[in-house]
């Protein structure tokens, strides 16, 4: 395991950082879509966040990273082992799995283990990337160039948390709960609206043009490359603070109250924007709650809604393909129209 750039040392990109933290607090928000230029620290931010999350405890030797505390949901292999042996637990860092653009379906969902089948004649499942990402992060760069049927499949699994494999004469189910992070540059092609809608949050990142900020970023990154350990040590307390905030937020998440008034505002906002279905409302509700929890607030107020509305809704607008006025602008307009000024 090599040293990762500290989360707290990432300059700017507040929306991206916030959306990742919120998704880490409440997995039911769904995946995060990061749209924007190359070289804006998308990969860095995701790896950094994974590194500061507390280690997870897994059953030793389990290929699906089962949680030993959650006995009801052990994978079939662990269930088979449980009666005859004690399942030791080991602790490991939150996994981050990269899904390369050309990955085959076999590689993603898993397939028959060729080696065992050919040499020993045993029918066994060889877990794919979805299993490797269980309880961690799954990152897809250039998700807009990924084949539609794979994106479809990924989003299905991301929402259900279960990977169902019915192929090669195998019939397997295993847990695959992960935070899906997709990135891409819309100038290079667009995602189908159906797929867009299924990402929980969508943020736009741009390369900072401000010279001072660019210099600051380069300086920090450069310092990191020169002496990684010293650099990480320097930011350790900041990272620990963020990690603590996330844990605290998780702890109080269930207690965060959403008043009828707040819910009404959320609905009004969605109606004003004409988002299809209830997915927009649900996501906005969950992200408001996660954001309030992150702030240590026990009650969702209008400032919370205001802060997270754009990232929760901007990719759900029914759009005219030829209308190039930014979605963020439209969300802002709608926010004003429902009388929700920045509080």
């Amino acid at each position, binding site marked *: 395991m090599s*040293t990762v750039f500290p989360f707290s040392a990432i300059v700017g990109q507040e929306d991206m950082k916030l959306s990742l933290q919120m998704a880490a607090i409440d997995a039911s928000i769904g995946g995060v879509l990061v749209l924007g230029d190359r*070289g*804006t620290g998308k990969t860095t931010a995701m790896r950094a966040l994974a590194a500061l999350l507390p280690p997870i405890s897994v059953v030793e030797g389990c290929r699906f990273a089962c949680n030993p505390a959650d006995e009801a949901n052990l994978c079939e292999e662990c269930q088979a082992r449980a009666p005859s042996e004690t399942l030791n637990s080991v602790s490991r860092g939150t996994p981050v799995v990269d899904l390369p653009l*050309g990955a085959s379906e076999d590689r993603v969902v898993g397939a028959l283990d060729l*080696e065992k089948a*050919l040499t020993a004649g045993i029918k066994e499942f060889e877990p794919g990337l979805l299993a490797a990402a269980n309880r961690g992060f799954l990152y897809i760069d250039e998700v807009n160039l990924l084949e539609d049927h794979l994106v479809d499949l990924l989003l299905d699994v991301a929402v259900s948390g279960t990977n169902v494999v019915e192929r090669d004469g195998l019939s397997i189910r295993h847990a695959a709960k992960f935070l899906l992070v997709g990135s891409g540059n819309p*100038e290079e092609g*667009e995602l189908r609206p159906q797929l867009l809608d299924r990402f929980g949050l969508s943020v736009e990142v741009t*390369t900072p043009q401000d010279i001072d900020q*660019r210099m600051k970023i380069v300086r920090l990154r450069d310092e990191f490359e020169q002496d990684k350990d010293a650099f990480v040590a320097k930011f350790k307390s900041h990272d620990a603070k963020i990690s603590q905030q996330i844990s605290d937020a998780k702890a109080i998440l269930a207690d965060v109250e959403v008043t009828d008034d707040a819910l009404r505002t959320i609905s009004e906002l969605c109606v004003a924007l004409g988002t299809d279905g209830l997915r927009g409302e649900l996501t906005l509700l969950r992200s408001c709650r996660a954001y309030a929890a992150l702030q240590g607030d026990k009650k969702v107020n209008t400032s919370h809604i205001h802060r997270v509305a754009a990232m929760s809704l901007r990719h759900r607008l029914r759009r005219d393909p030829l209308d190039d006025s930014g979605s963020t602008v439209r969300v802002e307009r709608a926010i004003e129209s429902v009388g929700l000024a920045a509080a």
Partner: protein
Amino acid sequence: MSEGAQRWALATTALSLLKADPTLKGLLVGTAHGPVHQAFAAQISEQFPITHIPVSVSIERLNGGLDISQTLAAGKPVYQKGLLDTPEGVLLVNGAERLDTATSSALSAHLDNPDTPDTRLVVMDESTEDEIGLSESALADRLAMMIELPTLPLAQLQALVNEQAIDGGTTSVDAIAMVELSDSLLQEIALLANRLGVDSLRSLLYAVRVARAHAALNGRNEVAVEDAAIAAQLVLAPRATMVDQSQNPDEEEPEDQPNDTDTPEEEPPPDQAPEDQQQQPEQADNNDQEDSTQDIGEQLLEAANATLPQNVIADLVRGQKNNRTAGRDASATGKGQSGRPTGVRRPRGSHRNQRLNIVETLKAAAPKQRLRDNPFNGHQRLKIRLEDFRVTRYKQPTRTTTVFVVDASGSAALHRLAEAKGAVELLLAECYVRRDRVAMISFKGTEANLELPPTRSLVRAKRGLAGLPGGGGTPLAAGLDLANQVVQQLKQAGETPVVVIMTDGKANIARDGQGSRVQAMEDAHDSAKRLAATGVKCLFIDTAPRARPQARELAQSLQARYLPLPSMDSQNLPDLIRA
């Protein structure tokens, strides 16, 4: 030093830097196949053990895994190591412009992975000027340096190879880390990146690292102006998307460079002994930063511009920017490994590139077991032969790209450019529904322009269309020739192009740019026939107020469907494309 020699020197410097600092990760080399290419490859192999990665490599071969035919023959698992697991040296990709998205993103992921071994990736891009190269891909963004090899006479090449040794063993990663970089110089580098329109922070970071490594190689413990100049040439200039407007572009043409050799800021031959460079006047200037800051900026910019190839500048000044990542979609050149599964087939060619479908393979082998004299006793193992192998067949969506060729000449503008635009917008909306890509070419004055390279972004298409000015002559032949080029490229990439031409057909500028109506029409017919010969489907929309026979004749030369705009309800257009 001649321009060619300078470029060669820069290339060897890049190799030295790559050797000195593994965190630079890689090098993109623009080159035509030939002796210079070979000499450069020989230079690499002198410095590093080389592992060749063929463009057609399979993902399994890259990442390693079970070697199926060996395994079957041996009766026990035989693994092959992935090419990416090579512990040291250089991974070399030749003809990288042909890399498909899957392989290229596997290589990108390899470079991104912080746990990868200390291998460097050298990518040889052999694309010619009118082809789509690699230099703007996600992979290129992850390679620190980009160079363009010169074409040199053999004798000169030999002399250069002999006199310029690669120097990479004299410094260490630790020494590089000790090199200081002043704030003022960092600011200059950052400003230069902004002026050249290099947005990616990754590139800026690489520029800093290259400058530092170059300083260390030359025995300095602080980055000097010449180090920054090298970084500008190797990292920033090749990625430039704009030309600094404060400069007169004419002065930046490489042809005019010989005059510059006598100016003091011309970068020193990088491989000279360090003490040579200690005597450079800049060293002294650099110490009193107050009054020299402005000078440093000017110097960096000139060095950067000098390495821009001529045609890049010409394109840039016209506001053109090649975007071709979208064109490198997995489906375009796929090895039949992606898409939706649709049944099985026998593997073609080397089965190593394909994943066996075990169940189907076993089914194919099962009936033949008795013939193969193995009635399941004795060995207890099935006899599977090569002929039983089955792989899954994948269906890839065929992608259509509609190429709009829009007449923006004065005669068209006068009549109905606005209506033509409206018609294109209708077609665009249709393309969005069909998930087609679009490209747009316009012609006016004396030349044709690729206004919009193939893209799926309709927003860009609309923006390009809205901003399309009209006026000038009608160089119809030029427009059709450019369309031909684009069509050929799309076909090469495995896509299905469709061409929609909107013009009144009154060509009055010949191919050579002369204003002769007769010659212009002759050229237009000639170009039309050539385009028709590619077999591409064309739609000819006559935008003249009254349909004339000359336009219809042109449409015939194109073997295109002819549609006069006046008689047409513009809502019907999309249906016609589909038909």
